[in-house]
């Protein structure tokens, strides 16, 4: 009797767990499915090649603007993050390394709207850059930096100490050891981290609302004083318009965004999976 009750309880517990799991999968499928479905119905290929006009037109300006903003973000975030990760993993004494990791984690926990508002106060108002590509790019830098730093650090930490010792024994300085040998096994990890950081940057809205502004023309090369359009803005703003055309543009923007990010994510997973499979085989 007692035994039966325990078995029944076990089944109930696992049943609930499976239910929760099914709920998550259902949510994911429903989300991706409905956004893709609406997106495909609204998307026209010509949208990629014409800028927004009023509430209709295309997405060329937003796509180019997104790329420009993410590019500026990466230009600042990648060197800082990679160098910072190298310092944390290779040079810093353990206690300092723990502090740096902690600070980076805290920075990544700062709400993105606060980063955007900080960019507005400092860059747009105090520095008089206006809503601009540079202000938006710097805001994205703050989002991506802690992520790149952490992935660089983790992938370097996985390189065995033996490899460093071998390099040092050849008379290399620490820097030479890092630049000539240690980075190689860590390279794929660092690259996936960078790609995922780019994916995060592509999907951000909140930090850009207060820094990049909006522009229905294609981005100029001016770094300051020229507003830039971006995809997430279209998806957010045009959805509220009462016109079907505007909403279609919003769906299409969401669709393009989702496709870009899914592609990056899948490429990253594939690379990770292949390198894992390869190292597994060579170990065996």
């Amino acid at each position, binding site marked *: 009797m007692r035994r039966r009750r325990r078995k029944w309880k076990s089944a109930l517990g696992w049943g609930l767990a499976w239910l929760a*799991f099914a709920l998550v999968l259902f949510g994911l499928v429903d989300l991706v499915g409905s956004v893709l479905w609406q997106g495909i119905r609204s998307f026209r290929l010509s949208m990629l090649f014409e800028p927004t006009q009023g509430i209709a037109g295309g997405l060329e300006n937003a796509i180019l603007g997104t790329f420009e903003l993410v590019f500026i973000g990466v230009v600042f975030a990648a060197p800082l993050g990679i160098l910072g990760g190298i310092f944390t993993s290779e040079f810093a004494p353990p206690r300092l390394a723990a502090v740096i990791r902690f600070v980076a984690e805290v920075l990544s926990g*700062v709400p993105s*709207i*606060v980063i955007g508002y900080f960019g507005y106060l400092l860059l747009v108002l105090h520095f008089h850059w206006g809503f601009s590509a540079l202000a938006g790019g710097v805001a994205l830098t703050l989002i991506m930096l*802690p992520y790149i730093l952490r992935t660089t650090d983790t992938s370097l930490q996985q390189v065995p100490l033996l490899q460093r010792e071998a390099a040092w024994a050849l*008379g290399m300085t620490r820097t030479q050891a890092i630049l000539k040998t240690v980075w190689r096994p860590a390279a794929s990890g660092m690259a996936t981290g960078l790609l995922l950081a780019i994916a995060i940057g592509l*999907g951000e809205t909140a930090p850009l609302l207060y820094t990049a502004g909006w522009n229905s023309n294609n981005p100029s090369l001016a770094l300051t004083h020229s507003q830039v359009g971006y995809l997430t803005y279209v998806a957010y703003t045009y959805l509220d318009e009462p016109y079907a055309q505007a909403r279609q543009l919003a769906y299409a923007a969401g669709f393009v965004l989702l496709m870009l990010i899914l592609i990056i994510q899948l490429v990253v997973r594939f690379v990770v999976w292949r390198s894992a499979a390869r190292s597994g085989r060579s170990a065996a």
Partner: protein
Amino acid sequence: MRKVSKAAKGWDRGFRVLAAIGAASPAVFLVSIAAIVLVESIPTIRFMGIHFLTETRWDMGNLYGALTHRNGITAPAGASYGALVFIVGTLLSSVIALVIAVPVSVGTALILAYRVRGPLGFLLNILVELLAGIPSVVIGLWGILVLVPWIANAFAPFLKSVLGFIPFFGGQTGTGYSLLASGIVLAMMIVPIITATTRDLLVQVPLLAREGGLGIGMTSWEVVRYIALPYIREGFIGAVALGWGRAMGETMAVLMVSGNATNILPQNLYSPISTMAAFIANQLDSAETDASGMAVHALSELALLLLAITLATNLVARWLVRPRRRGGVVAP
């Protein structure tokens, strides 16, 4: 042994300095964010004092009329910056998100850690991680397309008919743009975070401890209930706190489905709300029209408050999930 050349030593030193600059940059950014937001909010702190936290009325005053002076600060007549509505909205929506997300995440993490393996497990893990990578504006899009109509037409009336006798569940069921929609959307966003952390913790539970449980005749569920879950308790609480911090700071998805209420506290689960983060994002235009600049300062104080709350939850979370040595059931 080859002698290290002077040039190589110089390069080494230079590279170290560069790397140190990179490593110091997050701290520099963090401090400057806090400093700028704090300095910019000083005028509102002096103008409103503690009423910033207790007042429900957020009103920029008559922007084209006379100016008032209080505590040495000049503001448009009738201006009042009370953030209580947004504080309540932030706390309520994030708590609802936790109520939904915690059981779902635990269940999902248990399945991912103990029930699926091999290629299928790999695939399912990827799917859950994919959810973490979906931009919040896309989740907001889904919220408007699917969730809000569903809540308005089906879920809210259903909840009201079943649980309507409980005060917060009764009353007008509204348009769907609501506290409930915000909570569900936030839950979508924090489930992958809590699930991934919990799964990693569950995988670390020593096999010997679990096998020991099976060995004395526990069912597999009892092993989870009495061995695995107690083992990961602190780390799990940390993961929840981490998700909570994320939920309170989330902007876009909430902004799109919350209904953007101002000056009124939510009456029930189906009332429109606004959160601190969403309100800051929503107020861009009005902040720019205020010539006295007080609106900018007031939003800055809101950002400061949000920063302080999320940092506090983050610190607690990090402290709880910190790696540690522990005695007891650890395998050799």
